[in-house]
């Protein structure tokens, strides 16, 4: 034994290599995390106020709720949490692999590419350029950019893992790898779209198929973007911050593998009671409930890491942030499966309950873990101590207060509204037939929520000040020295020669890129081909949209109406009473993309067609409060004056034809003419209803045409 250890320690000495960690890239991502975090919170606070003060759009289309809300959600997920992931991965991966990142250049490309994506997202969303699929709203050129940058990140990560000096892959690395692989697949499959201009495209999937792909993506993006990479960070940074090993390493391995195998099957729980087949819905529920076990195992593992160190937690704001983050993870992963149970979902879906749920996740789990990591990391990178522990403690309490002030009113609002929607009088009619009543009831909750968000933002600003001061008092360590022995099987002794790398790196890198590119190429070829054939109409009376309606539908997407309105009447008596006939799968076969929505801030619109006359919509869109006093829907006055781009409809129709929508051959050529004819008809009706100054070519005409078409293909009983 003694002999053995001498021998190996000699070898150890002989092979000891000195190398430097790249902290520069970590610093870049850390700064981006902070900057975009503040931006995401600011946009969040803005939408939180705008939802009950619609005049906050100042009459500008660029600042209207439907366009700002996607900026907020995308910024929180992809800009704040995204950069947070990269910050944590670039720091921890180097240390866990005992090597510098594979390539500084790839790291820089990854960084600037990602920031370019975020900047173009902000611009295009303000401009109303969107695919209309939640959390995947970016248009096709940006989708391609995302794929490229993501592959660069993957390449850099895998090559770093290959050249590691540590044989064992710490559990955090496994979380990173699984996240990367799954997100690649999700992004590619869900972003299948057919471009019809440089900035616009239609989803190749239609209706229920689109919905299924979208929520398979949506659910797994939560799983593999907001959860697993952050679990990797938790398993690295929590033990580091506490300076004690994770409670049970074995449990962390079980946590990882069981999450991985269960998560991908739970997606359909977003579509309970919709037109999705029953067995798929049940599958989603069962797997969602199974998820509780590994999730709670993980939470307990995190919390028990601090066993016997609670005195430290009381002192240390970093650990406090982490404890609340892990607890929030536990709460959100218990609540999620609960919401996937049909009877609870029937009440919670489309209400603010969902909003509360996701904010426990993002503000609590992602936000607080990021703050904890930043407070730990910035002093390390700048080789100093945190500027003010007191301020960090203040941030902790303010942030916690912010979360509570946010989520509690949202739970109350969600349950209140859900119950009001379903309430019947003893005579058997809806107690609150006027949807607006159920909205005004919860307005005070919206106001408190906006305050909660503001409090959380104030806390984050304290952090920025504290971190800037910390960096100022220290000096940045760009390259950090470390030493380690190389990983033995990277070397093969060859006769008489010096040692060679186990794997030549360049061919390996090329193999990696080639495999991914070929897989993506294959998917892009095959999936649309299979699908276009399968979009067969099942209800004979369901016809494709007219060019004018299609134009209006694209406006509906552009203005983000889906952020407040669903188009999916569920088969409950409370819904069929309110909205009439429930929605059938066959009604959506021409919907590229689907617009079922996920939140009812306003009423469902699937049976809107024919409910009111045209002038009602005309004045309602001009200013909802003129028609529905007390409404919180924003005004869209610009639609009354903005001219349609009539010729563009040819390309739209042509794209739809490529996707298999059965217009007659050559219809794209005559579509503009048909559009004008129908527009003229609606304009005449508007004049007859007493509207003066109607412009035949105004966009509002197209929107009215679309709204009047909604849900009219099948005759209500």
């Amino acid at each position, binding site marked *: 034994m003694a002999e053995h250890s001498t021998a190996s320690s000699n070898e150890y000495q002989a092979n000891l290599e000195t190398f430097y960690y790249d902290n520069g890239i970590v610093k870049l991502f850390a700064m981006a995390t902070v900057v975009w975090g503040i931006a995401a919170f600011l946009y969040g606070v803005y939408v939180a106020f705008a939802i009950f003060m619609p005049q906050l759009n100042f009459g500008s289309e660029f600042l209207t709720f439907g366009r700002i809300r996607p900026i907020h959600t995308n910024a929180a997920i992809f800009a704040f949490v995204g950069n947070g992931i990269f910050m944590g991965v670039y720091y921890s991966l180097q240390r866990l692999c005992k090597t510098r990142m594979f390539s500084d250049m790839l790291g820089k490309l990854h960084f600037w590419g990602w920031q370019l994506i975020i900047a173009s997202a902000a611009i295009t969303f303000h401009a109303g350029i969107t695919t209309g699929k939640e959390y995947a709203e970016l248009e096709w050129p940006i989708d391609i950019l995302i794929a490229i940058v993501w592959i660069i990140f993957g390449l850099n990560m895998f090559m770093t893992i290959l050249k590691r000096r540590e044989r064992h892959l710490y559990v955090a690395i496994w979380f990173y790898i699984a996240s990367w692989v799954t997100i690649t697949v999700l992004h590619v499959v869900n972003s299948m779209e057919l471009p019809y201009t440089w900035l616009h495209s239609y989803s190749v999937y239609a209706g229920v*198929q689109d919905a299924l792909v979208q929520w398979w993506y949506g659910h797994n993006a939560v799983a593999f973007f907001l959860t697993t990479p952050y679990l990797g960070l938790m398993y690295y940074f929590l033990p580091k911050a506490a300076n004690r090993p994770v409670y049970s390493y074995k449990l962390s391995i079980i946590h990882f*593998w069981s999450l991985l195998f269960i998560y991908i099957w739970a997606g359909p729980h977003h579509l309970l009671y919709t037109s999705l087949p029953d067995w798929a819905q049940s599958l989603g529920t069962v797997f969602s409930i199974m998820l509780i076990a590994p999730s709670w195992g993980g939470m307990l593992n995190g919390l028990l890491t601090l066993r016997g160190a609670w005195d430290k937690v009381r002192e240390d704001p970093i650990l406090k942030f982490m404890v609340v983050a892990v607890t929030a993870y536990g709460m959100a992963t218990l609540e999620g499966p609960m919401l996937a149970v049909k009877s609870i979902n029937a009440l919670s879906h489309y209400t603010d309950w969902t909003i509360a749920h996701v904010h426990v996740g993002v503000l609590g789990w992602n936000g607080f873990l990021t703050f904890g990591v930043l407070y730990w990391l910035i002093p390390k990178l700048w080789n100093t101590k945190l500027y003010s522990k007191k301020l960090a403690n203040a941030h902790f309490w303010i942030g916690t207060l912010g979360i509570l002030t946010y989520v509690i009113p949202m739970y109350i609002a969600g349950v209140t509204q859900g119950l009001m929607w379903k309430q019947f009088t003893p005579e058997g009619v809806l107690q609150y037939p006027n949807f607006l009543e159920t909205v005004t009831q919860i307005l005070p909750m919206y106001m408190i929520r906006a305050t909660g968000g503001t409090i959380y933002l104030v806390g984050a600003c304290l952090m920025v000040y504290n971190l800037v001061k910390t960096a100022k008092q220290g000096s940045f360590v760009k390259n950090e020295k470390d030493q380690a022995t190389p990983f033995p099987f990277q070397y093969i002794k060859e006769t008489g020669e010096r040692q060679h790398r186990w794997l030549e790196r360049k061919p390996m890198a090329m193999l990696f890129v080639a495999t991914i590119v070929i897989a993506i190429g294959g998917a892009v070829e095959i999936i649309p081909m299979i699908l276009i054939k399968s979009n067969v109409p099942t209800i004979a009376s369901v016809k494709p949209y007219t060019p004018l309606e299609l134009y209006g539908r694209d406006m509906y997407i552009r203005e983000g109406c889906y952020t407040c309105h669903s188009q999916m009447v569920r088969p409950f008596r409370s819904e069929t009473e309110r909205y009439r006939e429930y929605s059938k799968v066959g009604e959506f076969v021409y919907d590229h993309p689907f617009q079922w929505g996920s939140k009812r801030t306003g009423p469902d619109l699937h049976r809107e067609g024919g409910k009111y006359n045209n002038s009602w919509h005309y004045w309602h869109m001009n200013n909802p409060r003129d028609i529905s006093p007390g409404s919180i829907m924003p005004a869209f006055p610009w639609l009354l004056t903005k001219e349609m781009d009539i010729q563009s409809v040819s390309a739209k129709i042509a794209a739809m034809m490529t996707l298999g929508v059965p217009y007659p051959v050559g219809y794209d050529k005559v579509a503009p003419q048909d559009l004008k004819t129908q527009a003229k008809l609606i304009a005449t009706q508007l004049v007859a209803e007493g509207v003066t100054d109607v412009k035949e070519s105004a966009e509002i005409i197209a929107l009215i045409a679309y709204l009047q078409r909604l849900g009219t293909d099948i005759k209500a009983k």
Partner: protein
Amino acid sequence: MTVMLILIVISFTLAISFLAAFLWAVKNNQYEDTFTPSLRILMDNDKNNEENNDLRINQVN
């Protein structure tokens, strides 16, 4: 509902590749020792952090 077939095939492919990764990890003796890795990450060559050095003495013995 062809898309369900596609999603199931893709999900299965993912699951199988995860399974392969799991088998690789086991075969590669990645999980032979399920304790020291958790300690090793704490032992960075980290001169700024004296606490770390204390830990090394306390726990490894």
